[in-house]
């Protein structure tokens, strides 16, 4: 396994060096000349005949490139000779044309809309645009389509630098540059997702089908999004409300062979002809999976079932607008019996088995233990132009997260058992409000000032087990962000101040067993500041440098979690006898990104970063294990240390020939505990994904946009782990692995409908492997071979005629 991974990496590196050399040679061989023959033309939409501004036109031979102007015109000066012009534009199928230049030539292009891209990649009027000087990665269009049917955290792994903390096949928690949970903020349609962030087995309660675009801000973005965002931000952005009259619909269907996953998601949106200001959208998703199969056995109780829906209504006028949005997410996820241990003995027995004691046949049934989660979001946004000087925006949101966890066995007492109550039952309610004023450009300055507030309270059901106490968290903050842009330079700076008040009520028993309530309260003021610059010297290169300083106050779970969870005893820092109470973390994050784009052959992006976190809060084993009636437990405590995260994300592609594209994505992160001078535990291993893609340049009958791709996803063994690892973890990190994946796809014209169809295979060699960041790795292997069939059907509904 290790050897295979190394070989793959070596091959990829060799290929890379070769590509770099090839580009260097290609660039060096360009001769300056006095060629002044004009080659020009216009790029227009095939249907509407309107000019397409900002389309990229590239002379493949000389690598000259230019964007089209406002009317869609382009212009080159060339020597006499034969050239190939390549035109590309987001939302349209690209074209390449042969042009013989002997005198001034005019060559027009009529581009065809690309159904797949058009339906999912055109984003307008975003409320939550990412800071421009920070490293960001976007999943949209066909790349997003290729992840349909997967959970949010699973889909995001497509992006370099983003991994996931996983619990079996149903639960993926996004991890950005080695940070997750409390340190990653997720914005669901502009609303800060306030689920139950503490558990690594609590996946984000979001239906990814809602999104037409997923953006990840890699690195601290606390000034705009609040002090928790010291690891990064995930923006889940739905398709904007329709702005032209009519009714549209789209339907996505997904089927998977391994676990019998079936997913169907439909969206219906419209704009009222007689009331052009009024738009609406309705969306619903069903997703269900049965037992997952590793190469050798079925993973008992690994199914899940999800039902989600959302609706939005908007009223838009040039000077004001109002949007109302509501969404509901419902899921039931089975938990592997082997992972649901009650004691150290059980846990160690389960880990020692090469495969789980209980396996099963295929079924869609979900037994105990399972999680039942529901998340409701209601949102109201509005904007109003404040005269000629700016725009005022208000976002109000109310969200509720219900999380019930059912243990493997019902209570012994028949009366209690017949109630079928969850053993853990939490309700978390959050109200958020944000008032933002954006001022109009003034002397190259653009910016916004905002106020943000959060009111949150967490409860568990009467009579159920306490693991996280009652708490009420009130946050109020103010921020100011300014951008200055002139020529090739964009400078950005921001400041934020948050005031945070956490009140905790914890049920406890004294030595005699009498119940009492322990109250505590914490108040912090946490500042955040950031500065950044982007230098954009040409149409092909941008350099961005950003640095930010953030403080994050400790969360309730880091202070006060207490109890046995999956066979291990977890204890918040403040409950450990003699421990110093937790103090806020301070993070200094710096990232440098180089992006080269719109080149005919070689495009890509490299990000290097460092994140220094003082007072980094993480879990370590307790030296004195906690004794319960079920024996002594492997016990974990939250402590603080200083940690330095350094890493590199690379993603790039090389056009080998007109039809062949090779691409690679990789990420590396190195994390040191600088107090103890050792590696940090549970950090993502080095990974590299290389893909070779063939795109047919000619259509065949009803088939357009045909492509085929194959790739290898390789993950190394994590060797940078703390010394005396046996005392820190139950199992050493698993071996590295390399998986073979492949996909074919096309758009089929079916009547007037362009159906996007694709078939993807993952882990094609049915390899047995385990991943370091999957909590099931102690008990079972990962998913075996899986084939996924995806169909995307866009519909334009005919108008009613009078």
């Amino acid at each position: 396994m290790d050897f295979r991974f190394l070989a793959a990496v070596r091959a990829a590196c060799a290929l890379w060096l070769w590509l770099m050399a090839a580009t260097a040679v290609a660039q060096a061989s360009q001769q300056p000349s006095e060629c002044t023959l004009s080659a020009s033309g216009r790029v227009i939409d095939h249907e509407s005949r309107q000019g397409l501004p900002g389309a990229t036109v590239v002379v493949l031979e000389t690598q000259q490139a230019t964007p089209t102007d406002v009317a869609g015109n382009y212009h080159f000066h060339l020597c006499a000779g034969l050239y190939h012009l390549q035109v590309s534009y987001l939302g349209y199928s690209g074209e390449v044309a042969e042009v013989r230049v002997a005198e001034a030539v005019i060559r027009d292009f009529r581009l065809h809309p690309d159904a797949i891209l058009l339906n999912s990649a055109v984003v307008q009027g975003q409320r939550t645009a990412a800071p421009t000087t920070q490293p960001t990665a976007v999943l949209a269009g066909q790349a997003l389509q290729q992840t349909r049917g997967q959970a949010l955290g699973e889909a995001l792994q497509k992006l370099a630098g983003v991994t996931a903390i996983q619990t079996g096949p149903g639960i993926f928690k996004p991890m950005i540059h080695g940070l997750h949970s409390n340190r990653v903020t997720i914005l669901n349609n502009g609303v800060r997702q306030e689920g139950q962030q503490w558990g690594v087995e609590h996946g984000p309660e979001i239906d990814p089908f809602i999104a037409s675009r997923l953006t990840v801000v890699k690195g601290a973005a606390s000034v705009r999004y609040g002090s928790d965002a010291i690891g990064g931000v995930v923006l889940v952005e739905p398709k904007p409300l329709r702005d032209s009259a009519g009714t549209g619909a789209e339907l996505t269907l997904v089927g998977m062979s391994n676990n019998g996953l079936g997913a169907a998601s439909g969206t219906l949106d419209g704009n009222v002809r007689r009331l052009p200001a009024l738009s609406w959208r309705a969306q619903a998703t069903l997703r269900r999976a049965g037992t997952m199969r590793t190469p050798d056995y079925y993973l008992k109780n690994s199914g899940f079932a999800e039902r989600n829906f959302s609706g939005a209504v908007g009223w838009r006028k040039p000077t004001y607008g109002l949007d109302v949005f509501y969404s509901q997410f419902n899921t039931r996820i089975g938990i592997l019996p082997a992972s649901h241990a009650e004691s150290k003995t059980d846990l160690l027995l389960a880990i020692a088995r090469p495969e789980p004691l209980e396996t099963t046949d295929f079924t869609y049934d979900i037994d105990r233990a399972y999680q039942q989660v529901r998340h409701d979001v209601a949102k109201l946004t509005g904007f109003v132009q404040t005269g000629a000087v700016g725009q005022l925006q208000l976002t109000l949101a109310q969200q509720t997260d219900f999380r019930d966890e059912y243990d493997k066995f019902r209570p012994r007492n028949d009366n209690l058992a017949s109630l079928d109550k969850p053993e853990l039952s939490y309700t978390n309610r959050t109200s958020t409000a944000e008032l933002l004023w954006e001022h109009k450009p003034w002397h190259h300055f653009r910016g916004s000032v905002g106020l943000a507030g959060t009111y949150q309270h967490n409860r568990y059901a009467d009579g159920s087990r306490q693991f996280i106490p009652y708490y009420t968290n009130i946050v109020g903050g103010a921020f100011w962000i300014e951008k200055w842009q002139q020529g090739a330079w964009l400078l950005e700076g921001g400041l934020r101040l948050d005031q945070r008040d956490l009140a905790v009520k914890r049920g406890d028993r004294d030595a005699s067993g009498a119940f009492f309530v322990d109250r505590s309260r914490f108040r912090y003021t946490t500042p955040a500041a950031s500065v950044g610059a982007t230098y954009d010297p040409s149409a092909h290169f941008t350099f961005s440098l950003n640095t930010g300083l953030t403080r994050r106050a400790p969360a309730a779970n880091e202070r006060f979690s207490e109890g046995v969870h999956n066979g291990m005893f977890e204890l918040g820092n403040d409950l450990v006898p003699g421990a110093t109470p937790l103090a806020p973390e301070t993070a200094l994050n710096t990232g440098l990104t180089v992006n080269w784009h719109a080149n005919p052959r070689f495009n890509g992006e490299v990000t290097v970063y460092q994140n220094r976190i003082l007072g980094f809060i993480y879990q370590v084993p307790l030296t004195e294990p906690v004794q319960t009636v079920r024996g002594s437990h492997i016990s974990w405590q939250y402590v603080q240390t200083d940690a330095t995260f350094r890493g590199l994300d690379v993603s790039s592609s090389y056009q080998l020939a007109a039809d062949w594209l090779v691409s690679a994505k990789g990420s590396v992160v190195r994390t040191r505990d600088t107090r103890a001078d050792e590696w940090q535990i549970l950090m993502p291993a080095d990974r590299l994904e290389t893909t070779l893609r063939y795109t047919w340049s000619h259509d065949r009958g009803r088939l357009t946009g045909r492509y085929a791709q194959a790739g290898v996803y390789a993950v190394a063994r994590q060797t940078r782990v703390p010394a005396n690892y046996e005392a820190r973890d139950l199992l050493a990190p698993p071996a590295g692995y390399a998986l073979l994946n492949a996909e074919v796809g096309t758009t089929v014209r079916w009547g007037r409908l362009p159906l996007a169809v694709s078939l993807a295979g993952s882990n094609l060699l049915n390899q047995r492997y385990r991943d370091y960041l999957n909590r099931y790795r102690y008990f079972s292997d990962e998913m075996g071979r899986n084939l996924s069939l995806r169909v995307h059907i866009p519909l334009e509904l005919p108008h009613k005629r009078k």
Partner: protein
Amino acid sequence: MTHPLIKKSWLALLLVAPLLGACSKDNDDPQPDDDNEQITTVRYELTPVGGGTPVTVQYRDPDGDGGVAPVIGTLTLAAGKTYTGKLVVLDETKNPVVNTADEIKAEADEHIFFFEPSNVNLTISRTDKDAKGLELGLETRVVAGAANAATTTGTLKITLRHQPGTKNGTFAPGDTDVEVTFPTAVR
């Protein structure tokens, strides 16, 4: 245009927003976890066959998991004697106290106790059975053999396995509900 009006209503909403949350019941206090089964006390009562003073040892953790550490007694038996053993299992966090042993007895076909002496001369056999004829272990017969060497003490580990639908007389299936270890000596 009704800008000022709209602006005012928004400001009003902004002020009201936190109150919306505040209206819900959040000045309440956590309640005892009454629906949650716990075991706080495991007592092993040993009565010498043919009469004598009963010997008792117990594990007791009245505040449940975590918090104050449990109190664990020491068991001392007389060499060569035979005892009738009885396990008492309680949840003392509830009022009234729940007799968990009764519930275990009622669901005998889902439970089995294991007794593992170490460095102490004890032979323990289960004397009760479930409806399917598989042993349970709430009732036992304990034979104390030769005495421990002067200053040495062994241990007795008592484990309750919860095996709904999978009980077959062996240890492997199911989960552990009780695992307590008593310092034990034969004198």
